């Protein structure tokens, strides 16, 4: 309760106390601009991090429950081996469903490389069977052995080989996003410390008068801290709103779910950027407070 009332008193301020420090145009503009620019970048870093998070989840969840069987056999035997594979899969515990991809689906998969109208039926292209697992999953090694016996041309690919580096890459991107947010906050703190230091140095005469009339360091520091915190808050709010609009205007994800087109917020994730102005204000509060007490400590 005490913390809340102190916070409310801080936000409400004291109109008399606020006036004792003259407004300084340069440091005010610098603080507002820095906070705004940093908040804009933080929103993008947050969008990157959350998009990477979704991607990692999708790759690790969705791909973990699917696998592919590739059947390479002479055209005359291909149909028989496909049936044999589907029969094995029907009898395999842990397989939810399995189906052979149609010629049209295989043609669509190859279209990016060979163009449209590829005569799939006339080419020695392996037949693909998509397997969807149950939550428990199947015994991959047992299935491989049965396939080897029933359909010698069938090879099971459970996606493990290429899924792992993709998930690792997505996790790396997510981490990179949060590191970027940390660096943005640290840079904001550094810039505001410089601006506050400059304002304190420019107002040494004011500080001298305030001390002469009995002002405590806490009172003097508070006058500067409140001003810089509110400037950082207003700048960061503007930067956050601009960043959210920019993210909202990015192209939406297409059917291919490409990463760049999926950069953005979804659902409740839109609430996350609202933490940016709060973080900026808290950073400005502490940066200015530390700078103020250090400067006041150096002045007799």
């Amino acid at each position, binding site marked *: 309760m005490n913390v809340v009332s102190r916070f409310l008193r801080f936000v409400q301020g004291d109109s008399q106390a606020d006036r*004792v420090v003259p407004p300084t145009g340069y440091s005010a503009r610098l603080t507002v601009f820095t906070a705004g620019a940093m908040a804009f970048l933080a929103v993008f870093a947050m969008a990157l991090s959350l998009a990477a998070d979704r991607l990692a989840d999708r790759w690790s969840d969705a791909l973990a429950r699917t696998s592919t069987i590739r059947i390479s056999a002479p055209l005359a035997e291909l149909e028989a081996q496909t049936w044999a594979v589907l029969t094995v899969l029907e009898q395999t515990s842990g397989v939810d469903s399995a189906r052979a991809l149609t010629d049209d689906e295989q043609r669509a998969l190859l279209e990016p490389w060979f163009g449209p109208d590829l005569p799939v039926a006339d080419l020695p292209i392996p037949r693909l069977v998509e397997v969807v697992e149950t939550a428990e999953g199947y015994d991959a090694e047992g299935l491989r052995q049965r396939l080897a016996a029933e359909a010698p041309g069938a090879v099971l690919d459970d996606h493990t080989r290429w899924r792992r580096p993709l998930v690792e890459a997505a996790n790396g991107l997510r981490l990179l996003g949060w590191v970027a947010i940390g660096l943005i906050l640290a840079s904001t703190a550094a810039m505001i410390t410089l601006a506050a230091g400059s304002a304190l140095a420019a107002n040494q005469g004011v500080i001298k*008068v*305030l001390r002469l009339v*009995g002002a*405590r*360091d806490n*009172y003097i520091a508070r006058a500067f801290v409140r001003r810089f915190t509110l400037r950082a808050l207003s700048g960061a709010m503007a930067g956050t709103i601009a960043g959210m609009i920019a993210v909202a205007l990015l192209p939406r994800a297409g059917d291919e779910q490409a990463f760049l087109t999926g950069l953005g917020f979804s659902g409740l994730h839109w609430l996350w950027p609202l933490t940016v102005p709060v973080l900026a204000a808290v950073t400005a509060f502490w940066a200015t407070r530390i700078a103020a007490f250090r400067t006041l400590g150096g002045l*007799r």
Partner: protein
Amino acid sequence: MIELEDAAYGYGTEPLLSEIGLRLAPGSFHFLTGPSGAGKTTFLRLCYADLLPTGGSVRLFEQEAKAMSRDDIAKARQRIGVVHQDCQFLDHLPVAENIALPLTVSGRKTGQEAANLEELIGWVGLRARADALPPELSGGERQRAALARAVIMDPDVILADEPTGNVDWEMSLRLLTLLVELNKMGKTVLIATHDLALIRAAKAQVSARVLRIGGGRIHLAGADL
């Protein structure tokens, strides 16, 4: 209230003041005189802990200045009104707000205090100039505003550094009268000045002790004053 015992202060290796011993008793009236550069301002700054002695001791309200925290010093300064030679105002605030500054920083600006402020501004004759900014004031008006600011917290001690330095004789006498009035209200007053005529004029109104500063030491002034 304020006691100096064997106090010394120097800006470089040579001491400007040494072996200074003085006690400002409650309700006393002191003049401190001496040539320019003799150390009058330095002495006053020691008296409100703007400087700390390099030797000996300075005690403010029973507290050793060297051992006081900055908050302790701030608290002590609320009991000491200082009138500076160069006045030192916040130039972006009107005169009335500058005079009320000690109340503002101590969080004591209540309705009653606001009424006292009005009365005080009238007492120093600045009612018509209350909304002016300090750079718009004449030398005499600045000195009166500084005096009003020094007394608004009802301090125990008033220290004035050349309060008549930038004003004509008529205004000097007016300021002196205000300081004498404050002394009669029980305030301890110490005025640093090189204006001997002012000291002679004061002697007709108040029983004042005159100290002369020279050669780094303080002496009781002779009968020539």
